């Protein structure tokens, strides 16, 4: 019987899943990890490549998180090992979302043949198993930062382009766009000044989703050994290097794992609440 009453509007609707509260928690989680990654190199007391003791020593007063598989200070390596993952993820996300937005905007507004061509190309791109090809390129050509950024951006662009195009199609019908066309405004200016500001909201949501995904791919590549190379400190690489010593000193694995998990969960929760706010989604994910 209680279920039958579910349909009555409930006063608590605001404070639930994906509400402001969870968004704030997500923001704080992500911000904390980002701060650790960005300020870490300045806080590290030792060089991340300096040998300070025997391998896989447990925590002590001199090395708070113990030592890694070569006897280096885990805390210093953790503090220095995040900014590259963050930087590459941010760059890949920005390039991917911007590139996708430009493609989608152009396809949606210009229409006609250009739209057909762009959309068919995107269809083919989406039919590609992108993560596998990313792995293939990075592993064969070499783990160059620019290549990782480009490959990950290329994974994002087609999906973002679809979102941007759908949003553009809606906005392009609006009166203010018609007006701009009627007074003879250049198409490029209409796209930039009339349409773009009105499709920013879905793009912001994409930015968040894509950033979470970028971190996962780039940290995953490092974990597989296709990111920064030893002896560089890198969270993904550290997890893999120190797996064999889990029984002796779990911290060089546990701490990077927790940092990556908190960061990605944080960005995802935050993005979800932003999506609810700016896209007006109901809590079943639909507008």
């Amino acid at each position, binding site marked *: 019987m209680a*279920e*039958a009453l*579910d*349909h009555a509007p*409930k006063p*608590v*609707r605001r404070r*639930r*899943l*994906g509400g402001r509260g*969870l968004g704030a928690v997500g923001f704080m989680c992500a911000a904390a990890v980002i701060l650790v990654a960005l300020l870490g190199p300045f806080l590290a007391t030792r060089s991340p490549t300096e040998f300070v003791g025997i391998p896989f020593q447990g925590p002590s007063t001199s090395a708070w998180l113990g030592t890694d598989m070569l006897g280096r200070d885990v805390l210093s390596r953790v503090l220095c090992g995040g900014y590259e993952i963050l930087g590459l993820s941010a760059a890949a996300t920005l390039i991917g979302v911007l590139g996708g937005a430009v493609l989608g905007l152009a396809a949606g507004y210009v229409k006609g043949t250009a739209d057909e061509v762009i*959309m068919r190309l995107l*269809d*083919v791109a989406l*039919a*590609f*198993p*992108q*993560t*596998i*090809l990313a*792995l*293939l*390129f990075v*592993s*064969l*050509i*070499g783990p160059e930062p620019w290549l990782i950024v480009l490959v990950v951006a290329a994974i994002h662009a087609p999906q973002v382009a679809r979102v941007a195009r*759908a949003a553009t199609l809606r906005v392009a019908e609006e009166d203010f766009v018609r007006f701009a066309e009627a007074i003879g405004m250049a198409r490029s200016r209409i796209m930039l000044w009339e349409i773009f500001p009105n499709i920013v909201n879905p793009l912001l949501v994409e930015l968040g989703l894509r950033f*979470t995904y970028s*971190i*996962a*791919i780039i*940290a*995953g590549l490092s*974990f*597989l*050994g296709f990111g920064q190379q030893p002896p560089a400190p890198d969270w*993904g690489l550290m*997890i893999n290097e120190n*797996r064999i010593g*889990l*029984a002796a000193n*779990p911290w060089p*694995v*546990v701490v990077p*794992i927790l940092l*990556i*998990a908190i960061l*990605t*969960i944080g*960005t*995802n*929760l935050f993005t*979800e609440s932003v999506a609810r706010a700016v896209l007006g989604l109901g*809590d*079943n*994910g*639909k507008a």
Partner: protein
Amino acid sequence: MSLRHPLLGFLGRRLLLGALALLLVSIVVFAATQILPGDAARAVLGRSATPERLEALRLQLHLDRPALTQYWIWLSGLFAGDLGTSLVTPQSVYQLAAPRIANSFSLLVIVGAIGVPLAIAFGIAAAIRHNRPFDTGVSVTALAMAAVPEFVIGIGLIILFATVVLHWLPPVSLVFPGHSVWDTPRILVLPTLTLVIAVFPYIFRMMRSSMIEVLESEYIEMARLKGIAQHRLILRHALPNAIAPTVQVVALTFAYLAGGVVVVEYVFGFPGIGQGLVNAVFTRDIPMIQFITVLLAAFYVVVNIIADVIAVLVTPKLRTGAWRKP
């Protein structure tokens, strides 16, 4: 069914697109293995290789022919079932890949058999308890699960269940040559659990949201007012209408697993096709890399087509009307 049925046209277009994508994948994969820095033969054999061995490998890889001819030899071999010989062991690519394919397939089947019903059941349960603590709890958990990379989940499970905290399960999935993963089912537990956690959130979210939508519709309200029992209402009246979008998401999730198995198999040393790819990349075993990449790509493309066709079949509007891209 007449030939002009809109679904056939759609299927034709979709198959054509899939074939085009696969052809492009084969070109990209081939090109990628061509741009190995320097000579591929030297890259495989290393600096200390003798000129004779280098020459022999160049002949075996057809490196003496133009790139286009090499591509054609490889592609026609692929179609004829001749996958070439591994560069690292004297075995053929087929011999090396076949048991790995069987292992990965077993893993995917178990993940599907456990993960899909579980996610659907939780989706239904959360929809019924819409906005109550159970719903909120599971939904937030699913959001978190969706965010965390698979290798982090896998290593986390190893820490919890296989090394640091508990010692219930083996941390690596060791399988001796000639044995199947089924001989020691314990090794399947953690890889399965990792992939179930990876696929759960997407299926759960879709099931939950479409169920909520259906439960709010008028015919369900009517059925409720007529006093139909709760379980019958959910399973007989609501589920058939709510499951459609979920079926497509299930298919898409499995296409996505084509990439996911690579990392997860590597984490657990599970002797599947994904670990095979990572190993082949490390040893520069070009024929093996080419075959596994194209195989995973084919899986991805085919499952995607199935997902699209299912989407059309379960949506009456798309099934009967002229099909148009949004």
